[in-house]
């Protein structure tokens, strides 16, 4: 196992670790406003067209969204277990929990892909094959525009998270996540939980709006 030195601007490794975590918290604050602005536009339009949005939302594939909630929540659990294993220095557990997290993330993307195909089959993709039902005119398309901006953006964040997990697996292999210093993993964990939380907010906007 290699012994890590802090970078030149830090006095200690723990200062370096705390700073990295603060950096991720600050980043999450900006991300909150990024997704927040999008969800804000959604609520403005939903407020203007409540019936039309409810009608358009009936086409959203409920089972896909719900399964994905389950997958992501579970993946946050496995991520925390990975961090716990890192803190205890159980390297094999750490690796396995990280692999489980990545697996759940990949499953999410697959379900999402299936869902997008179903949306295509339902003629719900704006600018490709969207057909406005009379009950949802004129704003039904806005709902699906929101959907097709929000879900790919979220999926993109998730893919970045998967990349970070792979990077963590590589660092586990290299042996530089030790009980003395595993802050990078905690930072990735924060990010992963944020991506999870975004989905929790998108879920009711997309899947429950037409089903009250």
């Amino acid at each position, binding site marked *: 196992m290699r012994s890590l030195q802090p970078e030149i*601007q830090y006095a200690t490794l723990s200062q370096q670790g705390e700073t990295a975590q*603060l950096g991720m918290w600050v980043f999450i604050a900006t991300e909150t406003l*990024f997704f*927040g*602005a999008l969800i804000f536009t959604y609520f403005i339009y939903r407020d203007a067209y409540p019936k039309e949005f409810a009608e358009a939302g009936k086409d959203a594939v409920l089972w896909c969204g719900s399964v994905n909630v389950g997958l992501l929540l579970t993946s946050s659990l496995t991520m925390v277990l990975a961090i716990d294993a890192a803190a205890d220095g159980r390297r094999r557990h750490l690796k396995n929990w990280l692999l489980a997290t990545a697996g759940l993330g990949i499953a999410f993307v697959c379900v999402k892909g299936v869902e997008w195909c179903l949306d295509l089959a339902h003629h719900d993709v704006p600018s490709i094959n969207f057909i406005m039902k009379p009950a949802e005119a*004129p704003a039904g398309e806005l709902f699906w525009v929101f959907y097709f901006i929000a879900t790919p953006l979220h999926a993109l964040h998730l893919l970045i998270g998967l990349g970070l997990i792979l990077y963590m697996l590589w660092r586990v292999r290299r042996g530089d996540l030790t009980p003395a210093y595993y802050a990078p993993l905690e930072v990735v964990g924060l990010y992963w939980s944020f991506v999870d939380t975004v989905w929790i907010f998108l879920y009711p906007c997309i899947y429950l709006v037409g089903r009250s």
Partner: protein
Amino acid sequence: MATITAGLPTSYVTSENTISSWLLTKDHKRIALLFFASITFFFFIGGIAATLIRMHLATPEGLLQPDIYNRMFTMHGIVMVWFFLIPSIPTTLGNFIIPLAIGAHDLAFPRINLASWYVFNLSGLVLLYALIMGGIDTGWTFYTPYSTLFANGYVIAATLAVFINGFSSIMTGLNFVVTIHRLRAPGMTWMRLPLFVWGIYSVSLVMLLATPVLAMTVLLVAMERFMGVGIFDPARGGDPLLFQHMFWFYSHPAVYIMILPAMGVVSELITCYVRRPIFGYTGMTYALMSIAIISFFVWGHHMFTAGISIYSAVVFSLMTFFVAVPSAIKVFNWTASLHKGSITFDAPMLYALGFVLLFTIGGLTGLIVATVALDVHLQDTYFVIAHFHYIMVGGTVSAFFGGLHYWWPKITGRLYPEMWARMAALLTFVGFNLTFFPQFILGYLGMPRRYYAYPPEWQAWNVLSSAGASILAVAYILPLGYLGWSLLRGERAAPNPWRATGLEWQTSSPPPKHNFERTPVVTAGPYLYDPEDGGFIAQNGAVNA
């Protein structure tokens, strides 16, 4: 050569000399210089567009084709706002000075700092692409539905450039916030921070919380154009006013992104050249933070004539008046700091005084346009143009040049020629006022902004304005000449040529690669100057050194 430099610590400039040691550097000081190069380039691009605009407006019938004129003022706005003013002080002076001023060896995330520069240049390339392919004519505000449905320029490329540019802003802001929270030297408490650090801290918060909203807004515009959907198209259920709300939610705070660091710079300059502690330090910090916070709740004052309800107009008007309170506190405190000081009128001080005067005019006229009834008359006239140029150019650019001269010896290890610098500072002040004061009058008379022609009776004021612009151009090109000369031939600078109190002056000029030989320990507040004999106590407790 070795015999000459022996005994001196190797500076960050000379420590390595390969091209890759610059392009892959993680040193905040080198990255600051890289940013200097980029924003100077864009300053002159935006300046060329401004020159063409003023040449065009010297005669009522003009010089450019109407369509070209539209593209020129759009390019001027986009380049100056996102590619010069917003990054100007934070990425250059902030990048260079902040770690030094708080006694740190670098920023918290040096790789992110370097990435910010690359992302900035990438966004610049995308913008240049839009420019070379024919530009856009929407104005820098990209108002819908014109930008989404009718404009025939490269709107997607330009909005993409602004989107990418936002990442650079966010990376830089994030680095500063985290650095100032975690990397202060022992003894550097929050209430001992120099006001420049407070200015950068407050502006970073605004960058972090406002920029993502702009990113989403321009993304929606680009998506609407690209996918042919109707996010802001009223015929398809969209709301064009929603765009304005979201755009100004960022773009009003953006004005404070420009002015807050400038306020920080000016506080450093005034104390040093007055040899007096700042008047009301605590009030200054609270003023910075409250300007940052209130800036998020005033955006509606850009929309008084856009069809928002009278009740929200009144509330936004009131909130805008509130911003004037901390702004006035700052102006009064700077003025009070002059009292019983021993003032030297060196170039940085001239720029700082220019800042205070021009910012005051810009601020007071801001109250006029924030008044709903008056704004109905003044909205979209040259009065508004003059008002915000007093803040952004008279304020921010003056402070940028003041700070550049003040820290020049620290950055380069050379002194600049004082007489030339004073002349540039005076020319800036004279040229600026001559350019923009007539625009207040034109606006009051009713000359609308963005029109390419005007009735002949307004020509006299427009000629004055264009004449002022040519003086301003000289004042901006002049430093390029004498600072360039100083880089090669200027007198070598001592570590603390201005006898200033900040920690950045307690290391060599230029500083060594990691700033300090040993981490400094802070024992004193900022600005312990003595007006009686001009003496001072530096923040590490050194007396007159």
